[in-house]
């Protein structure tokens, strides 16, 4: 017969094991992808799939010669950082204005911004494609930066807005009474206080732009194609190169996965439009 305390301990251990089981199950595809990236192509296709094999770095060493990986990676970097930069330049003043100069329209403006996210991209795919074609933006990094800035702007405004809302107004008023101009107020008081929140907004924007796969697949062909498009090009079965697919995928996902791990708690706020903190 177990005592009550023992029963409770046993329960904790069992629930912990269950949690581990679920987590391993959900993580398994990523683990398997990384594992496969160290296999030879023959091992990658063997039946039954092998857990133990002699690992090789071949796939990683061949990545650039086979698919010009760095060209695509560079596009991803430029597009993500570019759109994040422009997004921040637009979003910080907007959030500042709504958080500290609140008017009757502030709430409806915020909700309206949220509603632009409800516009399904296919609804505007045709005109954007034609506009891009006519203006020479098709398959350019500038074009993707414009699109990503616009689609992430509402989330960034919302996220920064919720951080700004938490700053006591007194601090800004004090600075203002000391004769600070609006610019000084932002750069010398507001930004230093909220740098944690701004950093997680930057991370969220980088993650979303890096992984975006509707516009990148439709608006780029080769010269501006980011990693999402490179990976998609592996879907045509011109032979079996799954180990290489895995290596490319691992490299493409690793930086963002680490960003995500580092900022998981702060991201919740941005992803839920400030509703969950």
């Amino acid at each position, binding site marked *: 017969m177990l005592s009550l305390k023992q029963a409770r301990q046993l329960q904790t251990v069992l629930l912990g094991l269950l949690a581990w089981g679920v987590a391993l199950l959900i993580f398994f595809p990523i683990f398997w992808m990384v594992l496969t990236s160290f296999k030879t192509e023959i091992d990658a296709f063997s039946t039954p799939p092998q857990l133990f094999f002699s690992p090789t770095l071949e796939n990683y060493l061949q990545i650039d010669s086979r698919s010009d990986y760095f060209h695509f990676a560079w596009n991803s970097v430029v597009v993500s950082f570019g759109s994040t930069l422009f997004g921040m330049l637009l979003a910080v003043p907007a959030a500042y204005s709504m958080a500290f100069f609140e008017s009757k329209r502030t709430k409806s403006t915020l909700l309206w911004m949220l509603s632009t996210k409800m516009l399904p991209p*296919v609804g505007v795919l045709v005109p954007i494609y034609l506009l891009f074609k006519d203006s020479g933006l098709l398959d350019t990094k500038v074009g993707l930066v414009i699109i990503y800035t616009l689609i992430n702007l509402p989330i960034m405004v919302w996220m920064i807005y919720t951080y700004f809302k938490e700053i006591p107004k007194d601090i800004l008023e004090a600075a203002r009474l000391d004769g600070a101009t609006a610019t000084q107020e932002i750069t010398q008081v507001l930004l230093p206080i909220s740098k944690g929140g701004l950093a997680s907004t930057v991370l969220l924007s980088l993650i979303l732009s890096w992984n975006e796969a509707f516009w990148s697949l439709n608006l780029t062909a080769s010269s501006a194609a980011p990693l999402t498009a490179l990976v998609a090009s592996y879907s045509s079965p011109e032979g079996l190169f799954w180990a290489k697919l895995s290596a490319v995928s691992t490299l493409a996902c690793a930086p963002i996965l680490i960003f995500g791990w580092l900022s998981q708690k702060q991201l919740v706020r941005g992803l839920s439009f400030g509703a969950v903190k």
Partner: protein
Amino acid sequence: METPRSLSFPRASLSNKDKRANRMSTSSIRAGSPAVHTTSGPSSVQGEHRRKNRIGLAMLSPSVLVLLIWMAVPLAMTIYFSLIRYNLLYPGDNEFVGLENYYYFLTDAGFTSGALNTLWLVGSVLLISVIAGVLIAVLVDNAFWGRGIVRVMLISPFFIMPTVSALVWKNLLLHPVSGVFAAVWRFFGATPIDWFSEYPLGAIIMIVSWQWIPFAVLILMTAMQSLDQEQKDAARLDGAGPINVFIHITLPHLARPIAVVVMIETIFLLSIFAEIFTTTGGGPGYETTNLAFLIYTQALLQFDVGMASSGGLIAVVIANIAAFLLIRMIGKNLTDKS
């Protein structure tokens, strides 16, 4: 005493202590410069107010303007294109055809399956991810060894780009010969399933659910942390079993975060594209074509701009109906407490 705060979220990032410290420092600054207060008369207060409004407007307008253009211009073009005959393969023949494009889009063989598949995809992924999300969030809310690592593993799939998760699932896991699923099926003596030819939509739902369960877990896990532990303990002392605690305390507490999960996921799930593009290409037949993919095939594969535009507009209307209902449900919650 705290009243039951099951539906509100205490702010975590600025602790009360910080706030008090801030307030103290500002009041001392104010005390140091009283002159400003005494000299500002009613008229300059008004002027100050106007100046403030101008600054506020100037800072807000760039964002509003670009978003307005982003919404209005393409949408106006879509409406215009949807009313004319416009095929990139036959340039010059752009006569006004009224609602003909809509008629053809709605009676197209792909439309019914596209609409139904969209519904299936959104509905089942929502159901799967919310149920799994709640259960997992409750499960990892207990303390156990290695909880930090478990949480990191649970949310990881959300950060994997859609094209990668689609191809990893298709080629490494669901492949009928060399896939891991096939090996598991064989291990139990069953015949491996060729997922993408037997249950193509099911396979897509599996992949998309794998991507979105972590999102639900991430949001709900964070929301669980603001659940009042004392309330739970009190209920337990009163003899409530774990199921009763779950139904009467945990679920009501999670109501709003669940609503948020449903809203955000609906926005993204209505436009699932990359997963279909890289795995099935909408096939076999129209079996995995959703509305987003149908419009894409008409615009960029068949070059029928007119018909694709009418489809795009129908997608916008559907999304707006969903958004209207969801914002009514949840939108108030989002701004009310701020």
